[in-house]
């Protein structure tokens, strides 16, 4: 038996050394970074959005962005209970959207006011990190965090991992709801029950050289609160906005590096 214990200790020792050697490996893989850093050697295209909350607030009660998005993408208005809601872009009160920036003296123009929120298409997306099947993934070419609804097993790990509550699960079949409201479109896939979905930054429109529908709708409605473009294209509308204005992101301390910026 003494021998077995020794054998065990040997195995345990070897495993510990093995585990220890992965630490330098890991640190080599993960660049040291401050929460606001962007990659040093940047990619050519990173789609991003700037949301001007002041302009957005001027259009009180406006739902142009979410209505058009949900209509175009077969996002159903699920019946009660509220916990079964599916949404891609919607409004949250300032203190709930910016949980770290809010304080007891936030000015009246912001406190309690609705702020547009959507998937942040993070540079380092936690949802992609945890997904066990790569059903959600970041497109290397342009940074869009996309979904393969046919691969998704519906484990909802991504929903537990997303710090922004941007993901919705289909708690029941959305098709009957869409059909009942006569809004089922056949030019965009509807989802089945049991899969997760979220904003796709209108990848289907970008492929045709068009801007996301929420941005179009906002401009068409005279809001001009949403700007969209390539973060690394100096001539883009939003790159200019970023240079000109002070912008913030949701929960920057988590290091997810959201690609949605806010002017508040």
């Amino acid at each position, binding site marked *: 038996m003494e021998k077995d214990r020794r054998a065990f200790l040997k195995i345990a020792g070897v495993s510990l050394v093995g585990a220890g050697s992965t630490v330098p490996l890991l640190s080599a893989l993960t660049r040291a970074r401050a929460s606001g850093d962007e990659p040093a050697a940047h990619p050519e295209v990173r789609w991003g959005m700037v949301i001007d909350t002041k302009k957005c607030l001027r259009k009180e009660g406006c739902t142009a962005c979410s209505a058009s998005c949900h209509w175009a993408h077969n996002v159903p208005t699920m019946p009660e209970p509220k916990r079964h809601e599916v949404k891609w872009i919607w409004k949250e009160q300032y203190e709930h959207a910016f*949980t770290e920036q809010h304080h007891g003296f936030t000015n009246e123009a912001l406190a309690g006011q609705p702020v547009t929120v959507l998937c942040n298409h993070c540079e380092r997306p936690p949802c992609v*990190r945890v997904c066990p099947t790569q059903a959600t993934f970041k497109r290397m070419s342009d940074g869009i965090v996309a979904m393969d609804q046919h691969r998704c097993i519906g484990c909802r790990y991504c929903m537990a991992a997303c710090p922004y509550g941007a993901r919705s699960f289909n708690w029941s079949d959305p098709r009957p709801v869409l059909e009942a409201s006569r809004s089922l479109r056949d030019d965009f896939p509807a989802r089945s029950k*049991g899969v997760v979905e979220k904003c796709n930054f209108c990848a289907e429109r970008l492929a045709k050289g068009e801007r996301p529908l929420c941005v179009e709708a906002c401009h068409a409605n005279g809001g001009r609160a949403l700007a969209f473009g390539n973060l690394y294209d100096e001539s883009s509308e939003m790159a200019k906005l970023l240079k000109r204005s002070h912008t913030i992101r949701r929960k920057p301390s988590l290091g997810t590096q959201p690609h949605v910026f806010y002017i508040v």
Partner: protein
Amino acid sequence: MLEKALKGTPKYWILVGLLLIIIAAGVLTFLRQLQEGLGITGLGRDIPWGFYIAQFTFMVGVAASAVMVVLPYYLHDFKAFGRLVILGEMLAVSAVLVCSLFIFVDMGQPSRVLNVMLYPTLGSPMFWDMMSLMGYAGLNAVIAYVTFGAERAGVAPPKWIKPIIILSIPWAVSIHTVTAFLYAGLEARHFWMTAILAPRFLASAFASGPSLLIILALVLRKFTKFDVGDVAIGKLAQIVTYALAVSIFFFLVELFTGLYSDIPSHTAHFEYLFKGIGEHKALVNWMWTSQILAFGSLGVLLMPSARKKHGLLAVVCGLVIFAIWIEKGLGMIIAAFVPNTFHRVVEYAPTGPELTISLGVYALGALLLTVLYKIAIGVREEVES
């Protein structure tokens, strides 16, 4: 060996029949869930994981705790565990079945569950959890089958099984560690983001699992001729005592860091658990019950004389299991989502269908355990006569 499970007393068949009825209710409700979707549960966009995942977490602990009999017996040659070790291994196999089923019933698309292996994603703890659980079930099944087969034939177990048994020891630790890593690596959920989560999981597992084993051993002693012996039960009770003490200590350590730092995103979850936020206090009574039971049980278990009274010991072990079940099977998972990422308080309660499916899963595990124990007892009687 299987024929042993097909002959039994009326009591045995009543137990099997009862479990089959519960399983049938669970299966029927699960079919409804397949049809209608997970909307029949109390889960929602704010609390995407609830009762199923919490039961999974609790039962991984029970599975891992088999190591508490395997290690003393095989590494320290603690002979008194000779008759207990097979019970521990069989409990581990049944517990892994329960864990896997709880993951399965929680899936939105259960038919696609093999995607986890078709598209192995090394960066996802869920992939590792699946691997480690399957591996652990396999190891324990092989070990139980080979060692027990040898015992039945009256020969020493083959030499090659020894390294496999030794491998199963760190493997047991790994299943609960990886399960903790499922949660502890999420920057979105500060309640889980604590380095002591895995140690806490292990400590509470080593208190609840052996408690269950004590109860099972006492039940077997009462209703069958299978007796693991007083020494084994006494030692297990000691293990429960140590593990419970460590588990409580780890919890207090967690509480200090979580509360003294006074960061709202950390304190809010403890506040929800033990005080409630506004009118939202669904878990408060549960959590205090859990704490009182844990401390009270430890008080009793610390007295050596109390551990020797098997009636009392069985009750205390039941309370330990209940206390830890509340902590892991209710509080641990749900509280991480309350408040949610928007710092809004949305509460969750499991629905009837959700509980029926869960009962069915537990009954399925209990049925496998009953059949396995029946075989073990039958073979032992055969060998001894």
